[in-house]
């Protein structure tokens, strides 16, 4: 039985994401990568916390002046929900239901796009409303770097899931691409994990002052 | 740079003799401590060196035994030993004990050296000096005495001197090896510490210690030296009042010097002050204060203090300190102008 061989519902293994050696390697390697990403984001968080509200003079806005809860809440809901939809997609992947998986993945992508749109709007708003630009202060640089790095992850995640969907649109599921879908969904969850800390540490704690 | 090719051999032998004595120059070496801080550090160095030499000897003994006893002589297969718990316990516990012996005084000393409570007390009469480091020169402000001087730090002996350290451009590090370890001058904040200069041992070192910049700060990092005049409290007080007496720029003594003063007032006064009061904020003090330039021990921290070197410096500072902030900031000077300036600057003394 080969990785690219056509399987049926009956022959589909219980953990398709880890049923070949190649898949196991990919799975593990990706998790290790996420361990590294944890430290990467920790560095950015630590930098942000050290530079929070560090501005050259009082004409600059501080965290408590610029953030708005409704916007952040909406973005959070979009991203949290997309996490659930990608769980659904993996549920169907495990049950060898390709079509359903694709549907849920599409919803995930749409939610992700919504989140991204909000973030772009938000940055744009800060720049025009508060002159809070990437170069205006250390605080601003740290804020845009941390949140922007996350946004870049979202963008990359979207591109990745889309690429997988297009590539495998005609092929259906097999043991070669199932781990790829699975790993991409892990990535998506990880982005969500990071966001939980961003909305807590950056936005909510920013509002608290 | 100037070359110093001759005498190399002779100085080599001379210094080889010093190597044997092993401690370096009294005005520079950390192995010739001349104050309380350096003493504490030297004691720690000695303690750790004893421990380390002990460790090395133990390792070497086993090492030599192995070398002589277990070379391959025949084709026998030695016994495949798995390990030994008792041995392992020994070489885990003994190092831990040794490290504890070292750790306790280390922690104690670290806290002792960081104790600057006295300087922050209201109306304490501790001597405080604000050190400001600039690309390749040092600025010293005595806030209570309301005087500023540069390059040559003047301190009283046998009392704690407190320092506020900050950099005005890039990070440097303030270090007087014979008197105590260094502390960085950061761009972000003020660092504080204290030093104590021992009277007797300062005398032995000629009352002049060498200070260094210890953090890479650009091309002339190697040349960012300063000197420390450690003198008794009486002499120090005399120096302070002599400095304080200079309210206005000193009048030139000779005609030539007066010429020099004119040139100075035209080209140089924009950067260099010749009065010691500290009306300007530290950020505005962009060049060494020259009030007591005539009393200095070196020019720009490195050159011999005489007219010839001074003229060389003024002619082309770049050859002596690459990348310094003075080069190219004033018009070219003629030989006459140089003579006049040298005469004037050398006359800038507050004491004789």
């Amino acid at each position: 039985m080969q990785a690219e061989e056509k399987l049926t519902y009956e022959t589909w293994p219980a953990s398709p994401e880890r049923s070949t050696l190649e898949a196991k390697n990919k799975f593990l390697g990706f998790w290790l990568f996420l361990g590294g990403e944890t430290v990467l984001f920790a560095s950015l968080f630590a930098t942000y916390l050290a530079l929070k509200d560090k501005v050259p003079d009082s004409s600059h806005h501080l965290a408590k002046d610029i953030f708005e809860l409704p916007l952040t809440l909406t973005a959070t809901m979009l991203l949290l929900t997309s996490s659930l939809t990608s769980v659904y997609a993996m549920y169907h992947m495990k049950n060898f239901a390709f079509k359903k998986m694709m549907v849920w993945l599409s919803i995930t992508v749409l939610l992700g796009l919504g989140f991204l749109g909000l973030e772009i709007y938000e940055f744009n708003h800060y720049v025009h409303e508060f002159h809070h630009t990437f170069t205006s202060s250390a605080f601003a640089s740290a804020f845009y770097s941390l949140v922007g790095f996350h946004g870049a992850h979202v963008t990359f995640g979207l591109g990745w899931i889309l690429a997988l969907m297009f590539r495998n649109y005609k092929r259906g599921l097999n043991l070669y691409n199932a781990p790829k879908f699975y790993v991409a969904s892990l990535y998506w969850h990880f982005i969500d994990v990071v966001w939980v800390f961003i909305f807590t540490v950056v936005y909510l704690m920013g509002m608290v002052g | 740079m100037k070359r110093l090719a001759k005498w190399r051999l002779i100085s080599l032998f001379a210094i080889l003799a010093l190597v044997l004595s092993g401690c370096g120059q009294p005005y520079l070496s950390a192995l010739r401590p001349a104050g309380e801080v350096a003493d504490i550090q030297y004691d720690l160095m000695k303690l750790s060196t004893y421990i380390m030499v002990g460790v090395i000897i133990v390792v070497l003994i086993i090492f030599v035994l192995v070398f002589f006893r277990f070379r391959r002589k025949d084709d026998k297969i030695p016994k495949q030993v798995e390990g030994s718990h008792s041995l392992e316990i020994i070489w885990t516990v003994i190092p831990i004990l040794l490290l504890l012996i070292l750790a306790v005084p280390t922690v104690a000393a670290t806290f002792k050296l960081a104790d600057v409570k006295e300087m922050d007390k209201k109306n304490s009469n501790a001597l405080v000096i604000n050190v400001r480091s600039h690309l390749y020169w040092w600025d010293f402000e005595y806030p209570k005495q309301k005087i500023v001087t540069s390059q040559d730090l003047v301190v009283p002996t046998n009392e704690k001197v407190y320092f506020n350290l900050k950099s005005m451009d890039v990070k440097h590090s303030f270090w007087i090896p014979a008197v105590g370890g260094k502390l960085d001058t950061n761009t972000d904040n003020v660092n504080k510490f204290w030093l104590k200069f021992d009277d007797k041992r300062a005398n032995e070192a000629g009352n002049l210690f060498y200070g260094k910049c210890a953090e890479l700060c650009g091309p002339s990092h190697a040349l960012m030296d300063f000197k420390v005049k450690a003198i008794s409290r009486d002499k120090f007080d005399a120096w302070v009042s002599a400095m304080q007496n200079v309210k206005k720029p000193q009048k030139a003594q000779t005609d030539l010097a007066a010429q020099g003063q004119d040139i100075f007032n035209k080209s140089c006064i924009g950067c260099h002050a010749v009065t010691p009061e500290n009306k300007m904020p530290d950020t505005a003090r962009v060049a060494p204060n020259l009030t007591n330039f005539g009393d200095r021990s070196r020019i720009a921290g490195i050159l011999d203090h005489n007219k010839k070197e001074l003229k060389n410096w003024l002619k082309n500072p770049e050859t002596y300190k690459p990348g310094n902030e003075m080069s190219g900031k004033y018009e070219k000077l003629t030989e006459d102008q140089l003579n006049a300036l040298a005469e004037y600057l050398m006359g800038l003394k507050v004491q004789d």
Partner: protein
Amino acid sequence: MTNQPLSSSNPRVDLEYRRRKNAEEMRYQVISFTLMIFLTFVAFGVVAIKGFTAWFVVPFILLLACVQVVFQLFYFMHMSHKGHEAPSMFLFTGVFLAMIMVWAFMTIIWW
């Protein structure tokens, strides 16, 4: 370097069990999702109601964030499942280092 599936035997009896297990797991996931949404609202609520002191709010919302992340990791990312020993070891090492770093940056970069 083989691509052979490691569990190739796949008797039919398993299937029903597996489907049920997947569905059951999905139910847990929906529950944890609901809880996450709930926690999020609580966190936002605590901040929106301006009454509490920062000394309460900050630790509280941080705690909520951690709880949420545990849900993500263990339910959504299946970290509780078998075969995740190495991943969780490395992930938690990462988390540990992350905590040290944040702690350091909050205490010894201070001016």
